[in-house]
């Protein structure tokens, strides 16, 4: 049977090499008998071979429920982050707050990352489609319900890692530079006052000034902080206040 298949393949390949419309040297190899392909030991496809997980090991790694349901062909069940009739509707939003029980992962602990994600999504949705405030449906969710370490882990640590890296690189380069200039080694640099000062300036500088637009931002903040004061004192331009003149 393999030969029949091969012939077929050869025929198709031959056909393919001929220009279309040319009907002369067409080799038609037809299998006379019903070609039954025997089920052999099939090799695993790349999806399986590539380290795909499923079941419990895939917890948290699956596509969202909606996507899974779609792939399985079932209709997506439940409402997620929708505005229905001017009201916010979500299966996990009960009594004006997120029902933390529905965010528990397989260990039984609340997955705070998911809670943060869903609150971000809710705020974005309401920002783009403001809905009227309804007395019967108050919002009671307070962001302080999410513990501080969840915030730190999610938002601060990645940034901190980046900044630590930058500070380390800058510190190393500067230490090398100073060593080359003055011959003072790393420890000696730390002992001097100037060295300690330079170290602090470097580290805090990297913390505060991350991009060049940050400098403009700080200038803007200083302007904002003093603008109102200047407006109030405008009437005293060139004139001393009676309370100061005494």
């Amino acid at each position, binding site marked *: 049977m393999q030969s029949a298949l091969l012939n077929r393949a050869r025929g198709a390949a031959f056909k393919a090499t001929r220009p279309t419309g040319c009907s002369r040297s067409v080799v038609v190899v037809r299998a006379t008998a019903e070609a039954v392909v025997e089920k052999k030991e099939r090799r695993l496809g790349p999806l399986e071979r590539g380290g795909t997980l499923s079941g419990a090991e895939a917890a948290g790694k699956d596509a969202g429920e909606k996507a899974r349901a779609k792939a399985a062909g079932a209709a997506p069940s439940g409402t997620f982050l929708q505005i229905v009739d*001017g009201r916010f509707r979500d299966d996990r939003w009960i009594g004006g707050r997120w029902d933390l029980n529905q965010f528990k992962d397989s260990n039984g602990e609340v997955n705070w990352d998911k809670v943060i994600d869903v609150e*971000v999504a809710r705020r974005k949705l309401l*920002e783009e489609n*403001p809905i009227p405030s309804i007395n019967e449906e108050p919002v009671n969710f307070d962001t302080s319900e999410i513990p501080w370490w969840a915030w730190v882990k999610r938002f601060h640590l990645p940034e901190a890692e980046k900044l630590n890296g930058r500070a380390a690189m800058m510190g190393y380069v500067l230490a090398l530079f100073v060593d080359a200039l003055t011959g003072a080694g790393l420890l000696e640099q730390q002992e001097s006052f100037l060295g300690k000062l330079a170290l602090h300036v470097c580290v805090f500088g990297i913390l505060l000034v991350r991009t060049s637009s940050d400098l403009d931002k700080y200038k803007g903040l200083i302007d904002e902080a003093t*603008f109102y004061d200047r407006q109030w004192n405008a009437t005293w331009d060139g004139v001393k206040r009676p309370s100061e003149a005494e």
Partner: protein
Amino acid sequence: MAASFANTQVSGKTATRQAVASRVAPFRAVTGARRVAGAQTSWLFAGQTVPQRLFAVSGARSVSRAVQTVFAVRDGASLEGRKLRVAVIGGGPSGACAAESLAKGGVETYLIERKLDNCKPCGGAIPICMVEEFDLPLEIIDRKVTKMKMISPSNREVDVGKTLSETEWIGMCRREVFDDFLRKRAQKLGANVLNGLFMRSEQQGENGPFTIYYNSYEDGSKMGTPATIEVDMIIGADGANSRIAKEIDAGEYDYAIAFQERIRIPDDKMKYYENLAEMYVGDDVSPDFYGWVFPKYDHVAVGTGTVVNKTAIKQYQQATRDRAKVKTEGGKIIRVEAHPIPEHPRPRRCKGRVALVGDAAGYVTKCSGEGIYFAAKSGRMCAEAIVEASSNGTKMVGEEAIRNYLDKWDRKYWATYKVLDILQKVFYRSNPAREAFVELCEDSYVQKMTFDSYLYKTVVPGNPLDDVKLLVRTVGSLIRSNALRSADSKSVNVSFGSKANDQRVATV
């Protein structure tokens, strides 16, 4: 300048004594009189009221070129035989309170108001301290608001007002009733209320009196008949579009446009607003202010305001109505009104013998946009400074007295204004900042501090430990709210510095 003033005042006193003892002919001032272009004026010292012949200074527009007598009197000189005359232009809270204090102090006062039944577009909220300080009868207060709801962009509602006691409330009043009461009271105390529209004023030489040209509506005509009065000083209390401010080149100020619709809603909905006011914050409602629903006597006022994007005010108003849609369902709009609200004081709040008070000076707080109390108080303080410096209307006063009032005002209320400015800069910047604001207002310490400073107009420093805890909580709230802002959010960031309005708004 101050030194020369002192000199003239001292020499003025000696001249008085001489004049009383023996009639001394008028003589020029020691410091040298300056000639006003086109006319000669003699500096007349106290008691010397010998009229000098001269031509009217006003030039082509002068009503009569006949000889006029001009009594140019120096500051500090005593006025023999007459009282100090002050004109207050504008009969709102600031003008009426100024006129009242002036009249009480024995000064001849003229209060010029163009519309005696004017219903100025206004939130109409007055703090409780105003009732005591200005002896207001409780009848002019339509409602006592004891609950204030703040609603965040994601509709988180916080009831700010849990810490109010039974005797504390915010009074809502009708401006036409309120203003009328204050004006009538000033009139009873001796102020002359003139119904007319101020046109312009002219000063007859330096240190001379002012001639005020106005269109009098006393005879009931629509156009008004031109009339004049002569006064020594002017207090400009004519509101945000002050003409007096233009005349003295007081300078421009940034202003917000406040837009308000009065809506009559069904009784059951009105019950909800019986003593409750709402504040909506959010990008949709206003990029740098808030939308409000304030209860009036039988309807609610729904409005919003903005500084940076005035052309989109109707869109913000629509958004405010939408946010309150369910609570005001079935309502009919009975009136639409708008008015500018100053954002900061004018660069010059006085010039010579002309002072500005109230909205004309720009005394509206940031963040809350409160103006009535400060207008009334500034009118009163200015008048009191004039009364004191003129020894109850017997001496001439000038810029020095007005600057005394300005200095006293600045020292007394600067802290309040600055705190509200800081609040606005921190919490009205962006949607996350507003969410943090509403979250923080849930706390009872914050509510107590807020209401204490609003109702009694003093910045009371609280317990330092609580303040530190509040600071930590504020920073925490702001960080969390900003973290919850989606990366592709379309909301805007607003800055409050010296840049032009269109540059102050930036999308994320």
